[in-house]
């Protein structure tokens, strides 16, 4: 198993001063640029530590929000490409459907891959609904635009002999020929995320690495859809390395210390849904069926415990989050057991995207959390035997 250290690079100082919305319409006057600079430098220091500890690195981007100051993932990737030595650099993800210019995205990604000497892991995502208000590209066609931007970027990264032409409703280029071309051949590994079985199956067809977030003990359903898509296209079973899961991780020398850190990490799910309601459901982002359910007042629970109890990520206690497989929290032994059990539920899961820092967690707590994990838990996870892919596929 590989483990990627992830933080959203938050600006937590105003998390209790937001008038109901931490995203889109929270005035940026609330951000002190000097404080932001200190935080950015600290987060890069912690990623350098992760690099030294043998962990890989994941970062993302969001816009107009105090939950995540990384508004352009390529900036973080660029810094990390230069200051880290060995870690894989995963962006999960790059919201390519919210960018009018996928050529620019292809150029950025190829350059980062070269500077990092082939350490880029390239995650493409559709993005959360509230980003639509910022990008202002039509959400009704977002999914189509996502797949077209994907097709374009992949072609740009893998075409080397002559410029090519691309003219569609969405994008217009007459001379596509990116310099530099990517370091990894034919291209950096591709990742994506989903919460739907339909998309999971499609990602399986591509053989991309698929990540889920907050799906807890309901993850298997999505992984199995991926396995089906993978097997149909390839005739072989998808290995555990095709699957990734974003887990909140809080380790402590004692259970009490771990729980204290767990409370700090839990500020992430508790804050991420604080956004002025209209921005959460732009037209066309959800299907008509989902919107009809919303009009009927029916929610769509996402997280389940092992015994089928529904947990609301935004409101659940640390214990609820542990029960739901959303958070792995405890002593190194306990955390190992929780992850091993979760891997078993998934039928194999080879990439843990570890949120080892969130919200107001201090530098000292973060260093201790990462170090304990890397030294006490990770070695055992590396030797954890994943379920046999063919046997899982046959189930």
């Amino acid at each position: 198993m590989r483990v990627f250290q992830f933080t959203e690079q938050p600006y937590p100082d105003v998390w209790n001063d937001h008038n109901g919305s931490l995203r889109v319409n929270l005035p940026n006057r609330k951000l002190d640029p000097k404080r932001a600079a200190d935080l950015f430098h600290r987060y890069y220091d912690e990623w350098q530590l992760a690099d030294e500890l043998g962990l890989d690195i994941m970062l993302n981007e969001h816009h107009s929000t105090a939950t995540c100051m990384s508004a352009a993932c390529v900036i973080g990737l660029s810094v990390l490409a230069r200051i880290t030595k060995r870690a894989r650099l995963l962006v999960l993800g790059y919201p390519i459907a919210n960018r009018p210019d996928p050529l620019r995205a292809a150029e950025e990604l190829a350059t980062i891959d070269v500077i990092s000497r082939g350490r880029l892991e390239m995650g493409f995502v559709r993005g959360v609904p509230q980003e639509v208000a910022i990008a202002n590209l039509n959400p009704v066609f977002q999914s189509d635009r996502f797949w077209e931007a994907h097709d374009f970027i992949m072609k740009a990264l893998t075409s080397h002999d002559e410029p090519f032409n691309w003219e569609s409703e969405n994008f217009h280029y007459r001379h596509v020929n990116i310099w530099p071309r990517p370091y990894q051949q034919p291209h950096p590994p591709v990742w994506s995320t989903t919460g739907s079985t339909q998309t999971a199956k499609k990602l399986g067809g591509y053989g991309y690495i698929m990540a889920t977030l907050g799906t807890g003990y309901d993850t298997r359903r999505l992984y199995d859809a991926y396995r089906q898509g993978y097997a149909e296209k390839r005739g072989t079973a998808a290995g555990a390395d095709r699957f990734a899961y974003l887990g909140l991780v809080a380790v402590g020398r004692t259970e009490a210390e771990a729980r204290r850190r767990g409370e700090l990490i839990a500020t992430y799910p508790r804050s991420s849904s604080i956004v002025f309601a209209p921005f959460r459901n732009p037209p066309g982002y959800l299907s008509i069926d989902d919107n009809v359910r919303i009009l009927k007042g029916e929610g769509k629970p996402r997280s389940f415990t092992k015994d089928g109890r529904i947990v609301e990520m935004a409101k659940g206690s640390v214990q609820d989050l542990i029960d739901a497989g959303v958070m792995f929290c405890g002593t190194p032994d306990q955390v190992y057991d929780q992850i091993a059990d979760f891997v078993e539920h998934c039928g194999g899961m080879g990439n843990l995207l570890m949120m080892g820092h969130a919200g107001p967690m201090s530098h000292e707590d973060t260093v201790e959390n990462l170090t304990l994990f890397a030294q006490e838990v990770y070695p055992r996870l590396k030797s954890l035997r994943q379920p046999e892919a063919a046997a899982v596929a046959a189930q």
Partner: protein
Amino acid sequence: MSVSAPETMRAEVAGVSVERSERGKGRPLLFLHPGHPSGRVDPAAPVLELLAENRRVIAPTHPGFGMDAAPPKLTTIDDLAYLYLDLMEALDLRGCVLVGVGLGGWIAAEMAVKNCERLSHLVLANAVGIKVGNRETRDIADIYAVTDKQLAELVYADPARMVRDSKTLPQNDLVMMARSREATGRYGWTPYLHNPKLKGRLHRVHIPTLVLWGEADRVVTPDYGRAYADAIPGARFATIGGAGHFPHLEQPETFASRVLEFVEETHR
């Protein structure tokens, strides 16, 4: 007593199945409904019956607003404008009064700047579609950045008209509500509910035009309506009291009589 019962029918136009309701006899009147949060006009709506007193009223459902998903090739208001010009040709409508409300007014304006040959009169009610103010002025309220309660206050003179509790509505009504919200975004997300080029083309409208405005509209204010009228040669501007963005729903009698009186007065 109704002058005639509405009939619902479909026509295949340029590869698209267009649903419409029809009622009444006489010279044709094409009625184009607004967008979210109203959408398709109920074929039994009083306004259609009032307009049909001595006319054939044709009220299509814009693709994507009824029960059916929009065909993938229809993505812009321009597409709908050409679709309805094709529909008029297919039905061989001549001397037709074209009435559009809100988003439907935008479609009507786009049709009129393209071709007025089959039109006798144009009525734009609380129409969106043009850019009036400078780049830092949002002419059209962002209906996707407000709560349902705020939306009701933007669109209605009497906000109590808006459905507050959708939970008990029939399934088909809910589907059409969801579709109306999505389809309005489909055709109008960006540039937001307008075509930057349209205002500069409105001089091409050379038929009698009435710009009619529910005066309580806070999505597009009466001043926006006046600017619309100013851009169309000879257009008349009039307001309707006690109505917001959907005057055909809030004041159907006044709406219909204003339309029909205008057509009588400017008969060609």
